[in-house]
């Protein structure tokens, strides 16, 4: 029998990423365990996107190590990501999802049901035949979420999933995130919206200049931030 391998927890041990003279991630240690969503917050350029890519396994850190379920260098089979600016395949909306289903090894006979379910979930029912690249930015964001879910991931990384959405779509996506989390998928997402962080997060990680300034449960973080930087960030002051 195959051992029930899992990609969780994702552990960062003293992870640094330097590109030329820039330190983009600075000795980050993190433990992403099953449970409520982990939300990354921090100013522009603080390293949220980079951290998600490293956690996805798309970039190798230059120091420290990342493990998935205790193992290093694991290809992203049970992980999925929605990028800040997702790329759409030059195919129809349905075909974009089918591509991910095929890649994840789903049976072809199950595709139509999966496509219908996923498009319904993200509010794109009826969009099947539209060329994906003709969708609006917000629609593309939602299709990318459906495509990521098509991989049936254990962990879902979302890079500012609601940044380009209107209030109604934001609410819809937050509902999807709750649904997905309730199904047991670990969600790790970044956001600039502190309200959203409050609504969704089980755990908060505050990044600043590539360094984890503070992390902990969302309740503790918002009730009593331990660091001055966190207090100022919550108060809406610029961190420089």
């Amino acid at each position, binding site marked *: 029998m195959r051992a029930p391998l899992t990609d969780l927890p994702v552990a960062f041990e003293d992870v640094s990423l330097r590109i030329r003279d820039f330190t983009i991630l600075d000795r980050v240690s993190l433990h992403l365990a099953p449970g409520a969503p982990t939300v990354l917050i921090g100013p522009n350029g603080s390293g949220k996107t980079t951290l998600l*890519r490293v956690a996805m396994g798309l970039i190798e850190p230059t120091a420290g190590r990342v493990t998935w379920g205790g193992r290093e260098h694991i290809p*992203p089979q049970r992980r999925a990501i929605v990028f800040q600016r*997702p*790329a759409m395949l*030059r195919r129809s909306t349905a075909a974009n999802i089918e*591509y991910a289903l095929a890649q994840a090894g789903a049976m072809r006979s199950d595709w139509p049901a999966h496509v219908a379910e996923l498009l319904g979930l993200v509010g794109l029912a009826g969009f099947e035949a539209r*060329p994906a*690249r*003709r969708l609006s930015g917000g629609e593309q964001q939602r299709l990318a979420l459906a495509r990521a879910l098509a991989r049936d991931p254990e962990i879902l990384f979302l890079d500012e999933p609601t940044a380009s959405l209107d209030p109604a779509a934001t609410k819809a996506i937050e509902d999807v995130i709750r649904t997905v989390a309730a199904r047991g998928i670990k969600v790790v997402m970044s956001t600039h919206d502190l309200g959203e962080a409050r609504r969704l997060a089980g755990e908060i990680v505050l990044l600043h200049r590539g360094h984890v300034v503070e992390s902990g449960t969302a309740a503790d973080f918002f009730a009593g931030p331990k660091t001055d930087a966190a207090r100022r960030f919550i108060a809406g002051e610029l961190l420089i």
Partner: protein
Amino acid sequence: MPSDLTAVQLVLSADPELMGIVSLSLTVSLAAVACAALIGIPLGALIALTRFPGREACIVVLNALMGLPPVVVGLAVYLLLSRSGPLGSWGLLFTPQAMVIAQAILVTPIIAALARQTIEDLWVEYREELAAMNVGPLGRIATLIWDGRFSLTTALLAGFGRAAAEVGAVIIVGGNIDGFTRTMTTAIALETSKGDLPLAIGLGIVLIAIVIVVNALAWGARRAGERFSG
């Protein structure tokens, strides 16, 4: 001008000599494009997706080879295939096969260079998504070729246009043998020099018609691509 009338009559009456020349031309050029595609598309994909020392130089050379002078290619293939050349024992000189080889050499850089550009542009866009979906190397190439198929079709048609219109290479390696290696372009050159203008003009009309049809197809392929896949 009576010669114009006879030219049109030749075309409209599907004159057997004229039709023979047209069909040989099309066969040779299509075969050359098929060979060039089999080499050029994978070659373009390989250069697009890999990083190796001298890659930039390779791309510059490939782009430069798009403008290879047909007569020089003809000469090179002639030297290869001539009785005393390295491939002389194949006995291909002055056959349609020799013309296919020469045109394929002429067209391969065009298809490879255009395919490289198309596939690389798409790769820049798709790279992270495909990595995130854990797509292997062969899957990547297949995806990029499939999603770039409309632009790649344009590359094939550009190659075909080049092959069908060139005269320098086929006349050297084919020898313009009546009923055997005479193509539209070589026939036009010969008939014009002999003063048989009706056949030359008739062939010219057909050649231009073919070029227009090919460009219409290229246009249609692009439009279809935009309509159906965005």
